[in-house]
């Protein structure tokens, strides 16, 4: 064991992002295992397993299609696709954020018993929800294909950057709340409440034109300070925006620059925030084993 020894230094917590990132990368198998565990635990003792996570959007699609086509003809054209192109990334955000928040205290016996980079806990929660998101996303794609709606268009290029920014933002928030929740257990409940209000402050079930019409220009600008609004709008531009010219009218801007600039700003801010909350998480994680 002389050549290939694992040398580990344990010292006071001072985050060196690059070195720490390398260490996390070395432990990526833990991350995969933890997130697999999360999915497995969620669907343990179920017959359908992961299929459940796909049934959810299927039901949404069917119900909304029926309701808004036959009962209450919606003012938003092609409402089911509009809804899901915002709802799915929102679900990724809200379940990832809430899951990350409780990840450390929900880590069972792991934290006080074995040594591993604790960042993997919130990250694994987010990763698990991302996997979930992909399954649900397949449902939306299938729906759009069945109804002959164009999938690929100029706006599609926004899809990947929007997802990256969304994950950055989720990780930045989730890392901070995960650490707080160890000492202050009501952080978790606070997050749940905040998500409820946040959902309605984000254009998912209504189009932004409602906001602009009712709040005026200043109100709309304030509304757009919500980072999630910008991220969700980019998803909508990427998915829903290409379905028809009328659909494009529902969104705040037809061009792509508007979205790209916003994603860039939110992305940069999220990266800074992530660095700060990571540092805080890292400093506190040295005592997690004792505080749980």
């Amino acid at each position, binding site marked *: 064991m002389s050549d290939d020894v694992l040398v580990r230094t344990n010292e006071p917590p001072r985050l060196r992002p690059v070195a720490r990132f390398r260490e996390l990368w070395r432990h990526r198998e833990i991350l995969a295992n933890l997130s697999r565990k999360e999915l497995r635990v969620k669907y343990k003792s179920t017959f359908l397993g992961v299929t459940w996570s796909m049934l959810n959007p299927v039901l949404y699609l069917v119900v909304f299609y029926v309701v808004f086509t036959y009962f209450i003809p919606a003012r938003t054209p092609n409402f089911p696709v509009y809804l899901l192109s915002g709802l799915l990334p929102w679900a990724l955000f809200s379940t990832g954020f809430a899951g990350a928040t409780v990840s450390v205290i929900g880590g069972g*016996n792991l934290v006080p018993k074995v040594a591993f980079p604790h960042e993997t806990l919130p990250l694994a929660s987010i990763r698990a929800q991302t996997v979930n998101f992909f399954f649900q996303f397949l449902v939306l794609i299938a729906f759009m294909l069945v109804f002959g709606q164009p999938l690929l268009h100029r706006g599609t290029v926004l899809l990947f950057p929007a997802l990256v920014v969304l994950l950055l933002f989720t990780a930045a928030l989730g890392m901070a709340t995960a650490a707080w929740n160890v000492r202050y257990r009501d952080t978790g409940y606070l997050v749940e409440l905040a998500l409820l209000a946040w959902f309605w402050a984000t254009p998912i079930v209504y189009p932004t034109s409602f906001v602009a019409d009712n709040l005026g220009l200043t109100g709309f600008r304030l509304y757009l300070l919500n980072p999630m609004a910008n991220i969700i709008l980019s998803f909508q531009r990427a998915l829903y925006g290409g379905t028809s010219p009328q659909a494009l009218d529902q969104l705040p801007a037809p061009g792509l620059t508007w979205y790209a600039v916003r994603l860039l700003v939110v992305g940069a801010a999220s990266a800074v925030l992530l660095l700060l909350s990571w540092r805080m998480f890292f400093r506190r994680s040295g005592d997690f084993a004792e505080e749980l």
Partner: protein
Amino acid sequence: MAEPAVSVAHVSKRFRLYHERPSSVKERLLRLRRSRVEDFWALRDVAFDVPEGQTWGLVGANGSGKTTLLKIIGGILRPTEGRVVTRGRIAALLELGAGFHPELSGRENVYLNASILGLSRRETDRHFDEIVAFAELEEFIDGQVKYYSSGMFVRLGFAVAVHVDPGILLIDEVLAVGDEAFQRKCIQRVRELQREGRTIVFVTHAVQQVHQICDGAVMLDHGRVREMGEVADVIREYRLVMARQHIGFARQQLTRDMEITAAETLDADGRRPTSVVQPGAGMHVQVEVRANRPVDDPVISLAIFEANGEFVWRTGTGDMQLGRVEGKLRIDFNMISLPLQEGRYLFTVGIHDRSERIVHDLHDQRYPFDVTGTLEDDNRVVIPVGTKVDRL
């Protein structure tokens, strides 16, 4: 010289103690002004090296910081100051079971745990059958571990830890759990690992174990290293400190509610004062005490120490219910035979309550006496013996 497998360099660990510790935001807001934080140093400037392939024991009283130190070596807690450098894969066995998730099956937990200990999936595949066989859990490995008994839990945890090919094994008194057969198996396995040249650090109260299997030892006392290095030295110091603490006389404030007014050593008949005794002969110690105010159920203790401070023996009135004591008492300790080696000894006399938390008065190692005479050979004690030989 080769690099040590474990190098602990000036490690300190501070814990924050929250008085009326707020556990929710509301409480914190309400108690903002009142929440007092007190620093508690669980470890202070601890430094030692464990050479590769050696087995070291960590000893110390409860609360001396042994487990905290083990957790810092294992990377579970991070030090406040200083650093620990380890070379080799670490497997830690802390308390009951390893980190298992109750909802997952035994099989899934083995993989999860092994990945945390640094094994790839392929490596785990290779060891899997061995692990299950060692834990004797073949029938249950696909059941959720929440249905496991505590014994099964421990067995699986131990099995994973010793099969992941650890370079360094950290053990926190886990060997004390499980049934006897499994315990034997564990100790056997630990010895095997020793022979294979693994480095082992373990925490224990069983000094005998340290004697038997350790190459070195560290004794912690209130978070500081009190003694380290040679096993014999460390154990001597440990026994001494434990004995002192055991009598409860270490550092308490004396209440003086009761006082020792006189203490005297008398010969075997209890008549003449003497301070010299033959090996195996008897001796009386007479103690007079006075209660300055009524005291409920006190205990008067007598202890013998060697001249170098090593604890030898103690007795006391603990078996008797003295009830409420007012005025004066005379206690006569009649030691029918003192089976002691030649040398100088000291009596300690103390008055305390039953829990030994309150000490009223203490004359620590104040009354000397000598054991003189010819003791045969290298006998450490004198045991009265009746020898009989029968021709068959």
